């Protein structure tokens, strides 16, 4: 089966500074890919590159980016706009931030729909209300008549998801959609995202810091470090048998209810644009060898079942 999204050897830079390096990932219909990594590792940049919203300073320098066989790098601007919202959706971190604060939610739904063609008035209404109830927002009429600031954070985030999903896109990009919500609401939103996936077969690319969310909802995990994907694989393979020292450190840093103390990762990742020899994690790696700081070749090491890392010395 061909993947709905295929990213190959993607390099992206901002103002000439290379941020993403050699990113290769694939995502299949109906699957959820979790992207993890510490702040500044390039997770948002990756999502923005996919949806073509890198802004004036961002540039894709090299690589391939294909959505359902469509080349997203060479696509015309006009055609890209038509894909966004219709076949590619995006949800942002701050609930409500993606909505205009001084326009009613209903108007913003209509705007999103009318950007992609003329719809029958009745049809539009049922469509919006259905999508809202899909997210357990039963009070649809009232919500459409409200402004974003009148709703709670959790409700806003669900409305934002409904807004992104209203045209049933095949791929939903979600940039930390739950991090700004409190824990109980987080769980609901995660649950509803999974329901949406089940109902519409939407493929999702989820950026999150929350390993709990990861272990609960995703199918595959991509671990990013300093603009590279350093480990990729099915959730269980990566969680149970992490091969890259950075992944291990990340998993060790998951807060536990009982027992183990949280282990941070000392040190800083390399600064973007400043060259480094060998592995970008070497300076912070507890099991680094001399070779890691010099001539190490960053090629994927296969562990079978699609699981690979950029570290040649993986061990269990």
């Amino acid at each position, binding site marked *: 089966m061909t993947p709905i999204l295929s990213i190959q050897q993607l390099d992206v830079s901002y103002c000439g500074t290379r941020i993403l390096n050699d990113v290769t990932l694939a995502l299949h219909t109906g699957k959820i890919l979790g992207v993890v990594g510490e702040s500044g590792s390039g997770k948002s940049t990756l999502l923005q590159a996919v949806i073509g919203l890198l802004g004036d300073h961002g540039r894709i320098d090299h690589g391939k980016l294909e959505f359902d066989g469509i080349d997203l790098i060479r696509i015309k601007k006009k055609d890209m706009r038509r894909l966004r919202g219709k076949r590619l959706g995006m949800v*942002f971190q701050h609930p409500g931030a*993606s909505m205009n604060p001084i326009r009613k939610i209903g108007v913003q739904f209509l705007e*999103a729909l009318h950007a992609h063609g003329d719809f029958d008035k009745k049809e539009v209404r049922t469509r919006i209300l259905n999508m809202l109830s899909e997210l357990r927002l039963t009070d649809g009429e009232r919500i459409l008549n409200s402004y974003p600031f009148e709703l709670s954070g959790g409700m806003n985030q669900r409305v934002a998801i409904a807004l*992104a999903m209203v045209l049933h896109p095949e791929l939903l990009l979600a940039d930390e959609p739950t991090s700004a919500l409190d824990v109980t609401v987080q769980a609901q939103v995660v649950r509803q995202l999974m329901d949406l996936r089940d109902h519409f077969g939407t493929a999702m690319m989820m950026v999150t810091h929350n390993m709990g969310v990861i272990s609960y909802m995703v199918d595959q995990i991509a671990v990013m470090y300093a603009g590279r994907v350093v480990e990729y694989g099915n959730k269980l393979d990566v969680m149970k048998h992490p091969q890259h020292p950075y992944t291990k450190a990340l998993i060790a840093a998951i807060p536990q209810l009982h027992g183990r103390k949280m282990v941070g990762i000392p040190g800083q990742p390399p600064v973007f644009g400043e060259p480094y020899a060998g592995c970008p994690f070497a300076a912070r790696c507890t099991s680094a060898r001399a070779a890691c700081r010099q001539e190490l070749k960053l090629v994927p090491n296969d562990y079978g079942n699609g699981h690979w890392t950029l570290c040649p010395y993986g061990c269990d």
Partner: protein
Amino acid sequence: MIWRYAVKRVLQLIPILFGITLLSYALMQSASADTVDMMMQKRGMLITPENQAVMRHEMGLDQPFILQYFQWLGKIFTGDMGYSYLKNMDVFPLFMKALPSTLLLTLSSMVVTVCISVPLGILSAVRQNKITDYVIRFFSFIGNALPGFFVALLLLLVFALWLGWLPVTGNHGFVSILLPTFTLAIAMSAKYTRQVRATVLEELNKDYVMGCLARGVKGRTILLANVLKNSMLTIVTLLALSIGSLLGGTAIVESIFMWPGVGSLAVDAIGNRDYAIIQVYVIWMAVIYVGINLITDLIYHFLDPRIRMQGEG
């Protein structure tokens, strides 16, 4: 409801206006010789101190200050705003005759300013750091740097003297308003183009623009239905403040073009120490500023649901 808020705000204005009138009355009383002295000066004759006392008593000038103030205020409300020794007539009709000219000039220069600065500001923001933006910014810089009287003289020189297209001064119907209008509008447009640009740029960087883009909303819709609407909140406030200062009469421009508005009236009055006019002018300014502030607030309320609903709660 917005009406309840409006009524509340108007009621709040009453003490403010009391304060301003009281202050201005007190200042005038302390700064000037009183009416009897003025009459003496004006008529160039001496009045005996006994007669002066009689006249002061007749005019109520020997009463306590606060009583005089309330009497004066009561007269103001009935349209009796004193007598101008300079023009030999009541101040109220004098003022009412000058007001339409000022209103007209305010309106025309605001319209021209909005028509120039809003499109240019938006264009400049959308084409940020491209050639169009640089050209617009260059001209707005020049427009900002030129003093008003210089622009006035320049326009007079070119359009009235060299080309002979427009009358130099006075009010001869439609054409006479062009030069003072553009003199005012050029400086204001320069200022507002920059402000509109800054506001639109700020809005363009907000998250909801990213959200709209991610939903595939067309660029034109984002600009007109979202960014512009949100920018209006700021722009309206700025414009309202300018309307306030224009309604006060733009003394320099009105004087240069001999535009018969309240600005020239006040300049004349100040030059001739015609206190009755000055006093009315001060009150007018106070009413304008307070009134414009109120209207701005109400518009802001109307435009921004966040504030609107706070007021309701």
